[in-house]
C-alpha cells in the first residue's frame, strides 16, 4: 500500500521547468525492480519467441498495460508516477502511451517532438545500472526552450544514429562530445523529461531496458486541440514504425475492474479522442 504523498517540491518543479528534466533517486525499491525485471524477462522471451526468434531487432517495445506484466501495468496507477506527472503537466493530464523498451544499441541526439503547442513529459525507469559509457541517458539542460532548442536543430545535431547527424559528420565529433548532463543511475531511480528536451544514450548493448510512461497536457486552447488532432492522426504510423508489439490498451486494463476513478477518466478521454481506436487496431 502506498501511503505517502509523492508531490514534487517547488524547487523540483522549478528545476524541471528550467532544465527540462528532473531526477528522482530511489523511487522504487530493489524488490520492486526485481519484480519488474522478472515480468520483463518473461514478456520479452515470449515476444521474441513469437516474432523475432533470431533476435535481429535492435529495438523491441511493448505496452505496459497488459495483464501478463501486472506489476509493471500497475505503476501507471502508482502515485510515484502520476502525482509528479500531474504536477508538471496538469491534474487532467493523460498517459497516452506507456511502454517496456528493450534496446539493442545506442541512441543519438534527438528530441521526441518539435511541437511546442502541447506539453508532453516522459517518466523513465532504467532497469539496469547506467553509466556514461553504458547506456546512461544524456540530456542537454535547458534545451527544451528557445533559443537553445532551435540552435541545436539549426546546427544539424539531430540524428538518432551518430552517423546520421550532419553536424557530427562534418565536425568529426562523436555524440559523446556534445556537452550535457549524464544521468548515471541505479534501478529504482526515475528521470522525467520534457519531450522537447534534447537527449541521447551511448554505450548501448543488447537488451538495454527501460520503462517509459508519458503524460500529455489535456488540450484546451485551439492550437493545443489542433496539435492533439495531429497526434491522433500520426500515432498509428509512428507506432508501426517503432514496431510496438501488442495492444496499447489491453481489454483487461480498459475494463477497470476496481473502478479506479482516475483510470476511468483516462479511458473516457482516450475513447473520446480516438486513441483506443487508433492504437488498438
Amino acid at each position, binding site marked *: 500500500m502506498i501511503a505517502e504523498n509523492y508531490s514534487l517540491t517547488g524547487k523540483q518543479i522549478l528545476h524541471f521547468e528550467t532544465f527540462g528534466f528532473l531526477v528522482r533517486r530511489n523511487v522504487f525499491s530493489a524488490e520492486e525492480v526485481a519484480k519488474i525485471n522478472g515480468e520483463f524477462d518473461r514478456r520479452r522471451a515470449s515476444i521474441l519467441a513469437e516474432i523475432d526468434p533470431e533476435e535481429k531487432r535492435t529495438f523491441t517495445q511493448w505496452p505496459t498495460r497488459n495483464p501478463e506484466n501486472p506489476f509493471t501495468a500497475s505503476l501507471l496507477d502508482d502515485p510515484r508516477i502520476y502525482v509528479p506527472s500531474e504536477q508538471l503537466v496538469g491534474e487532467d493530464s493523460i498517459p497516452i502511451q506507456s511502454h517496456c523498451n528493450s534496446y539493442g544499441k545506442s541512441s543519438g541526439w534527438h528530441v521526441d517532438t518539435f511541437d511546442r503547442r502541447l506539453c508532453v513529459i516522459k517518466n523513465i525507469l532504467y532497469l539496469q545500472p547506467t553509466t556514461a559509457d553504458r547506456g546512461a541517458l544524456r540530456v542537454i539542460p*535547458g534545451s527544451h526552450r528557445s533559443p537553445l532548442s532551435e540552435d*541545436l536543430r539549426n*546546427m544539424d545535431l539531430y540524428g538518432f544514429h551518430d552517423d546520421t547527424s550532419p*553536424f557530427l559528420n562534418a565536425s568529426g565529433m562523436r555524440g559523446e562530445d556534445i556537452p550535457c*548532463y549524464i544521468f548515471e543511475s541505479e534501478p529504482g531511480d526515475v528521470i522525467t523529461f520534457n519531450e522537447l528536451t534534447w537527449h541521447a544514450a551511448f554505450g548501448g548493448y543488447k537488451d538495454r531496458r527501460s520503462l517509459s510512461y508519458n503524460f500529455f497536457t489535456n488540450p484546451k486552447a485551439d492550437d493545443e486541440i489542433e496539435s492533439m488532432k495531429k497526434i491522433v492522426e500520426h500515432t498509428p504510423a509512428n507506432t508501426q514504425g517503432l514496431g510496438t508489439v501488442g495492444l496499447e490498451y489491453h481489454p483487461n486494463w480498459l475494463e477497470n475492474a476496481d473502478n479506479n476513478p482516475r483510470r476511468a477518466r483516462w479511458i473516457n478521454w482516450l475513447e473520446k479522442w480516438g486513441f483506443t481506436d487508433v492504437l488498438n487496431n
Partner: protein
Amino acid sequence: MSMLTEQQITFFNTFGFIILRKVFSDEELAIMDDEFETSLKTIQGERPDNEVPKHFNWSNLGPETPFLSLLPEDPRICETAEQLFGEHVIAVSSNSNRRVGNTHWHTDQSHPHSYGLKFAAYLQPLNSDNGAFRVIPGSHKQPFNDKLKHIEMHSSEITVPYYSCDSAPGDIVIFNFATWHSSFGGSTNRRMCTIDFYKNPETPEEVEGTYDQVIVDEKVYAKLRAYGSGFHPHWLANPQNSPRRQRWIDWLRKYGFVKSEEA
C-alpha cells in the same frame, strides 16, 4: 589560416564555450610553469609571513614573464578571439590565478550589454572531481541565463546539471563571460593562466556596459589582485610597435581601463 573551423564556431555560439586541445607544446608549458612559479615565489616573499590568500591573481603583462606577456598577441589566442567576437576585440587582461578549493556557480558578465570571452589555460590535469571547469551548456543566452539566477544552486534538493571540461596542461577552455560556470573539488593549489577579451561596443547600451565594466574591474582586482597594476608600463610602452597591441592600448585608455598615471 583560420584557427577555428566553422563547426567549432557553431559549437561555441551554441554552448557558450569550447575546449581546444594541445594548444601549447610541452616546451611552452615548461616556460609557463616556470614563469608562474617565479611570480608566485616573488609574491609570497613580499607578503607578511609568506601568507598567500585563497584566491588571488597577478598580471602577466610585465617583463618578468616574457612568454606569458605575449600570449594575448599570440595568433592562436587573438585570432581565435577575433573569429568569435569580431576583428575589433580587445585584450583587456592576461593574468595568472592561484585558487584554493571550490568556486561556486556564477557568470563573469557584470552588465547585460557588456560582452567578453575568457581563455583559460589550466596548468594541471583536471577532472570533475579535482577542480575542472564546470559549465552549464547554452547558459550564455537569454532567457536561460536569467532563469538560472532563480535556481537555488546550493540547495540539497537541486542537482545542478553540468558538463565537466576535463583538461590536460596545454589545453585551453574558451568561454563566453555570460556562461554559468563553477569548479568543485579543487586542490589547495589550482593554477591557471587567463586572457580576457572584450567585444568592441557598437551600441549605446554596449558603450554604457563597457564603462560599467571599468568600475567592476577595479573592484574585482582590488579584491583579487596580489600586487601591481594590470597594465605594466613595459607592456604599455609597446616596444615591438605591435599595431594590434597599440589599438588595444588606445581603446583601454579611451574607456578608462588604463589610467593616465599608468601610461
